[in-house]
């Protein structure tokens, strides 16, 4: 019995010693490191260089260019992993809809009126700040996923300060959020396949998720607007990802905050139906 309790602690301690020794003897890179690695200097050099137009990503922000242009397929599959997680949550809680009637009056639910008015003012600020983060994602640090996560704080505040019905009576219910999320993902799919649709027009090659001109292919999204580099397809991807992520998070919160009585009824019906 004693050995069963001590053995995991020994494993943890020995792995701590092993990781520390491996890091100190330069297994994860030079210690301390002062040079750039070769692949990093390639990305930094070619993402903003207008002299060499067949390796260009047309945006001054290198991290967004790596996420949506040089490593675009990784981000595509990460978006689909998030989509499948939301679908699995919907499948677990199937049959629960938000059509319950109101229990009390509007002014007796939730917290005090000071909190409600402050929440509405803060809600306006949250919407404007998150839209700004999504729209300048290709020029300064920002992007689609950060803005979607920032906007998803708004339904939490509304559910906790007022009640869940304050959202469902204003049109933010499960069906409309499902529609917005599918719209965002559909738009991303169209933008990924758009270069292939232009092959008969340019009489040449085209690649999936292509942003600018490549070797052997003449297709390019418009990249310079009023003498500033604007990123081409990065702006379109950021806006669509913002919409899809915010709608997905809101759907998860609406499912999680369903009242327990209606959920118990649906579980009892299922259990008696299978026996």
């Amino acid at each position: 019995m004693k050995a069963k309790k001590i053995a995991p602690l020994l494993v943890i301690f020995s792995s701590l010693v092993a990781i520390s020794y491996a890091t100190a003897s330069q297994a994860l890179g030079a210690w301390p490191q002062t040079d750039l690695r070769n692949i990093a200097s390639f990305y930094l050099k070619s993402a903003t260089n207008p002299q060499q137009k067949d390796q260009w990503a047309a945006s001054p922000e290198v991290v967004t260019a790596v996420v949506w242009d040089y490593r675009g397929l990784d981000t595509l599959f990460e978006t689909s992993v998030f989509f499948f997680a939301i679908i699995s949550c919907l499948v677990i809680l199937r049959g629960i809809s938000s059509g319950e009637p109101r229990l009390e009056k509007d002014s007796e639910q939730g917290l005090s009126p000071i909190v409600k008015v402050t929440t509405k003012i803060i809600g306006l600020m949250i919407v404007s700040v998150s839209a700004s983060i999504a729209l300048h994602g290709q020029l300064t640090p920002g992007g689609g996923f950060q803005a979607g996560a920032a906007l998803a704080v708004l339904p939490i505040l509304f559910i906790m300060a007022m009640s869940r019905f304050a959202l469902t009576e204003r049109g933010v219910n499960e069906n409309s959020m499902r529609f917005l999320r599918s719209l965002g993902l559909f738009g991303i799919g169209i933008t990924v396949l758009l270069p292939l649709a232009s092959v008969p027009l340019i009489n040449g090659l085209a690649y999936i998720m292509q942003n600018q001109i490549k070797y052997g292919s003449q297709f390019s999204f418009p990249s310079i607007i009023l003498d500033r580099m604007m990123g081409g397809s990065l702006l379109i991807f950021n806006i669509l990802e913002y919409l899809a992520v915010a709608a997905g998070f809101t759907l998860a919160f609406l499912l999680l905050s369903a009242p327990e009585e209606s959920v118990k009824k649906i579980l009892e019906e299922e259990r008696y139906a299978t026996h």
Partner: protein
Amino acid sequence: MVAYIFFSVILTLMISIYGIMYKPHVTKKIISLTIFGDVANILALLVGFRYIYPIAPPVLWTSSPTATDISKFLSVAVDPLPQALILTAIVINMAISLFIVFVALQVYRVYGTLDSKKMAEKRRGQGEP
């Protein structure tokens, strides 16, 4: 100082692994799992950092850069590749945490408790919960 930073991060990793293995309540395991994911992201970023001075984030903000601008940018900028991969890892961690919370809620509705030792007793005692 650099050795102390690395050591404290690895110690946090070990404490979160201890929390996953030794605490029987399911919610405590979920909290420890997210701390574990956070620390893994920090380790990945510490590996790709440059210990020079002056240092800048990987954003170049001149309107049409010439060759000298770009070579000066290369001598002060940080590696952009770990940041892009950690962004993907954050999204996937968030999706998995969301799903685990929903499954834990459903387990509570079926078993009546969220303590893994009591759940094991219930399954051993009867045929089904």
